[in-house]
Structure formats: structure tokens, C-alpha cells
């Protein structure tokens, strides 16, 4: 309890993650008429999507339908061939300072210690050394890793690496967090623990998030809203509100009465949208 409180101690004026309690910290994402071609094939074709402030959106869809492409466009990492994306009203045509990305393979620099990995984006954006150190430590505390700051990524388990990835994303106090299958590379048990932690974090500090996953269960567990994408070309085939209140836990979601119907609906959509696709995780 104490360490989480420390991160948002009253009077310290700044929080690791923005002011979720007041619901004012996240930005909104407006994608309209998005197109992306690779070679001759349209990977994303005419996609419109609006993500409201502090909404947690999960994107599911068959393999190769363009989820990563969509996320990379939002992150300013892939060019937008046609259409626009605006985050908090700002046009995306390169990585925005208010957007953080959590990568599937963690994206940690092997030559930097855990602490330096988390502090890097802060230092790079000109935050003073002491302040950056404090915020990096706060972010590490938030994911329960404040005591391993001087280890190298190679010394960590997959689950711990992704916690570091999460801490690095949260440390910059982003308005939007984009996550591309962040838990796909860890085992099922660790994955559930990480989901639980993410739920706990989000119930304290809400944040606009787009979370790509292959797992329908994960999507229902985490999301306020599930976007189902279809393939060839990538487009939205269903857009489902998840009527499960917060705070949640993995178990409470599974027990919820709307869980099974939701799961079936998403399954049907995935089956309908692709013959090749399906759930991997």
C-alpha cells in the first residue's frame, strides 16, 4: 500500500500516471478514413475509429489483419497513406510526446539497467536528472520492481521485462498508451498476473489505452470496449461495449453474466471475418 501511495502522495503535485481519479488525464484518438498499403494490397482500408478519453479499447482480429499496422500508425511509427489520426486534437505524423508504446518483445535496451531504461525517455525529453530519477523510481514502484533497478534486462523473466516496459511507458505520464500484444510472450500464468496488475493500475489511474491482443478472454477482461477487426482488407467488423464495471479482477470478469455471451459474439465475428484466423493465445 505504502509504495503505491508514495507514487501519488498528496502535495507532491505530480503523479506517475495522470489524474485518473478526476478522469481528466487521457487524450482521445480520432482515426478517420485510414488507409495503408503494403505493395499492392491494402492492409488497412477506410478505417474509422474514435477512442474517447480514458477509454480502454482492446483490438482483436485474425493474424495479419492489420492490428499492429493500425497501432504503429497511431504511434507515429508507420506512415499513414491516406486519412488522418488526431490524438488530443494533434495530428499524428510522427511519434507524439504524449503517446507511449509498450512493445510485444519488450523493447528494452540490453545495455541499460532497468532503471536507466525507464529513465531514458524522461532524460531524453529534458527532464532534470533528480526529477527523472524520482519519476523512474515511482514508475518502477508502481509495477512492483523498484528494488531491481540496477539489473540488466537479461537478468529478468519475461513478465518482469514487460513490467519494466510498462513502467517506462507510464513514467512519461502519457495521455495515450498503445500496447501491441504486450503479454503474448509470457506464459499463461504470468499473463493472468500481469492482467490483474494492469486492471489494478487502471482502476487507480485511468488512461486512454489501445491494447492489441489475440486472446478474446484478455480483451473482455481488460477492455471497456472491444474492436473486432476483419481481414483483407483490415477493417472494423464489430465494436462492442463491455458492460462490466470497475474495479474488476480476472476472476470477477469470468463470473460476470455477460462474459459468455460476449465471448461467443466475438468468436462468431472472428469466424465470420476469416477462415484462417482464430485465437492463438
Amino acid at each position, binding site marked *: 500500500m505504502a509504495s*503505491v501511495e508514495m507514487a501519488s502522495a498528496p502535495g507532491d503535485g505530480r503523479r506517475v500516471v495522470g489524474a485518473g481519479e478526476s478522469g481528466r488525464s487521457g487524450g482521445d484518438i480520432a482515426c478517420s478514413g485510414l488507409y495503408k498499403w503494403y505493395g499492392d494490397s491494402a492492409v488497412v482500408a477506410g478505417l474509422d475509429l474514435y477512442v474517447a478519453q480514458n477509454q480502454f479499447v482492446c483490438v482483436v482480429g485474425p493474424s495479419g489483419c492489420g492490428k499492429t499496422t493500425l497501432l504503429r500508425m497511431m504511434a507515429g511509427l508507420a506512415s499513414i497513406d491516406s486519412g488522418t489520426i488526431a490524438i488530443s486534437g494533434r495530428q499524428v505524423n510522427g511519434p507524439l510526446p504524449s503517446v507511449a508504446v509498450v512493445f510485444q518483445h519488450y523493447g528494452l535496451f540490453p545495455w541499460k539497467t532497468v532503471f536507466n531504461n525507464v529513465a531514458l525517455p524522461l532524460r*531524453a525529453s529534458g527532464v532534470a536528472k533528480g526529477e527523472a530519477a524520482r519519476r523512474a523510481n515511482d514508475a518502477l514502484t508502481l509495477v512492483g520492481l523498484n528494488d531491481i533497478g540496477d539489473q540488466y534486462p537479461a537478468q529478468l523473466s519475461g513478465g518482469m521485462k514487460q513490467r519494466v516496459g510498462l513502467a517506462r511507458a507510464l513514467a512519461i505520464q502519457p495521455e495515450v498508451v498503445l500496447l501491441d500484444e504486450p503479454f503474448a510472450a509470457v506464459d499463461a500464468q504470468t499473463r493472468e498476473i500481469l492482467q490483474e*496488475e494492469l486492471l489494478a493500475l487502471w482502476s487507480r489511474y485511468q488512461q486512454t489505452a489501445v491494447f492489441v491482443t489475440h486472446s478474446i478472454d484478455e480483451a473482455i477482461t481488460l477492455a471497456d470496449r472491444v474492436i473486432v477487426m476483419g481481414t483483407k482488407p483490415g477493417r472494423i467488423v464489430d465494436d462492442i461495449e463491455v458492460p462490466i464495471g470497475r474495479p474488476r479482477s480476472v476472476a470477477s470478469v469470468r463470473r460476470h453474466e455477460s462474459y459468455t455471451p460476449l465471448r461467443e459474439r466475438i468468436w462468431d465475428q472472428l469466424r465470420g471475418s476469416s477462415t484462417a484466423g482464430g485465437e492463438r493465445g
Partner: protein
Amino acid sequence: MAQRVEPQATGAARPGDRHGGVAGVGDKALGAQVREARRRRARRARRRFLAIRLTSLVVVFGAWQLYGMHTIAILFAPITTVLHQGYLLFAHDQLGSQLGYSMWTFVCGYAIGVAVGIVLGMLMGAYRWAEAAVSMYVFALYATPMVALVPIISLWIGFDATAQIVIIALFVTWPMTVTVFHGVRQIDAELMEVSRSLRLNRRQMWVHVLLPGAVPYVITGATQGVAMGLVGVIIAELQTQLSGLGDALQTQSQTYHTAAALAVILLIMVLGVGLRAILGLVQHRAVPWLRIDRGDGAQR
């Protein structure tokens, strides 16, 4: 509800974590035992390694000794004679100063070669324009035996130490450049994407990503460079003004002092091995993230 989630977020021991866990007294003792066992295993592995190496040395030098004792002195010499001749060269001839001269030109040429290689390789690896502008010359020179250029270099620069240093540098530069170039290119694409996402500027990109990412390759290149540089030293000394170790080698072998010539060759070998070992130590210090205990008792 909020209270329920607190322990999750505060880093107590969790299942699925290798790390953490509150160790009781029994755990601590067990931990010490495991660590001790691992240390013992590591020590045994090290001892075994040394034992094999020593045996190998004894066998090879023993065979050398035996063969040397049963052949004519003009063709070969036993190791004891070789060592004695080496001592005599140091004590009564100029082998000491010749060694000093060779080391001096080597260090100068090697340093220039490594520095140019790092700069060229990094630029070529990091910037398309640099690759477009110079890579074909680098690869052409890499593929050319540098010996072929020695007469031209002499023509241009002369036969003195400067010419020798340039020749040595040429031997080192191209393999170094190529290794560093490939090293920069092999930096994980995802990490490059991460750096863009973190909005690193050009300077930060170099400091935090490209340079540290290339360090292992720089060291690999520098290690290869030792061998190339030593080839350069001897060729330069034989082909320009006869000097240094090249002089010692030439003089002794042309006067059929085979044992003394072998002593010089042995000295060059020892130099190569020693310099490599020094670079190994540098690598160990410079790349801490690559010598992480993997729990198998072997340190990388």
C-alpha cells in the same frame, strides 16, 4: 476493492516471478548452499579447462623438443635452444629495441586503423547516404590483399616509419570497418523503432543506441584487427626499410640461424596472443550486459 489490489502493485513475491520471495532462515541456508555448489562447479570447470590447456602445451612443446633434437640445426631447433637463442638476442643483440620499434609502429597504425574503422563503419551503418557514398570502396579494399598496395605506398610516402604506420593502418581499417558496419546494421529493428517512439534526437540516438549497440562488434573488429595489424607490421618492415621484428626475422633466417629465427617467430606469436588477451579483458569490462550469470555456473 482498491485495497484488495494493493499488494499486487507493491512488488511482494508473486507466483510466476523468479525474483523476490521472502527468504526464511532455511531458505537462506539453502541459497548459500546452492551458491557454494555453483561456485565449486565453476571452479572445477575452470580447473579442467586449464588442465587441458597445460596438457596440450606440454604435448606440443614436448614434441617440438623431441623433433628438434633429432633433426639438423639448419632446419629446426628444440624449444630449449630456441628460448636460449631468444634470450641471447635480447641480451646481446637488439631484439629489445627492435621489439620496441615494432610495437610503437603497431600501436600507432592499429589505433589509426581502429579509429577510422569505427567512424567509417558507424557512419555507413547509420546513414544511407554514407553507405551510398563510400561502401563500395570499403568493400573493394576489404577484398584486396593489402600487400598489393605496399609498393605504391612506398612510392608515395617512402620507406620510413610513417609509411609503415600507414601500411599497418590499412591492414586494420577495412576488416574493422566492415565488422562495425554489420554490427550497426544488426542492432535490433525493434530497438530502432523504440528509439523513434521515445523521440530520441540524433545525438541521443548515437549515445544511447548506436554506440552501445555497436560496442560488441567494435571489440570483435578490434580483436581481428590485432592479427591483421601484426601481419601489417611484418610485411611493412620487410617491404620498406628493413627494421624492427621484421629485420630480426630476415637477418636470422637469411644467415641460417634457424633457432634464432624461430625465437623471433615465437615472440610474434606471443605478442598476438597477449594482445588478444588484453582485448578480451577490455571486452569483459566494456560489455557488462553480456556477462550475466545464466545460472549454469558459466560466466560469459
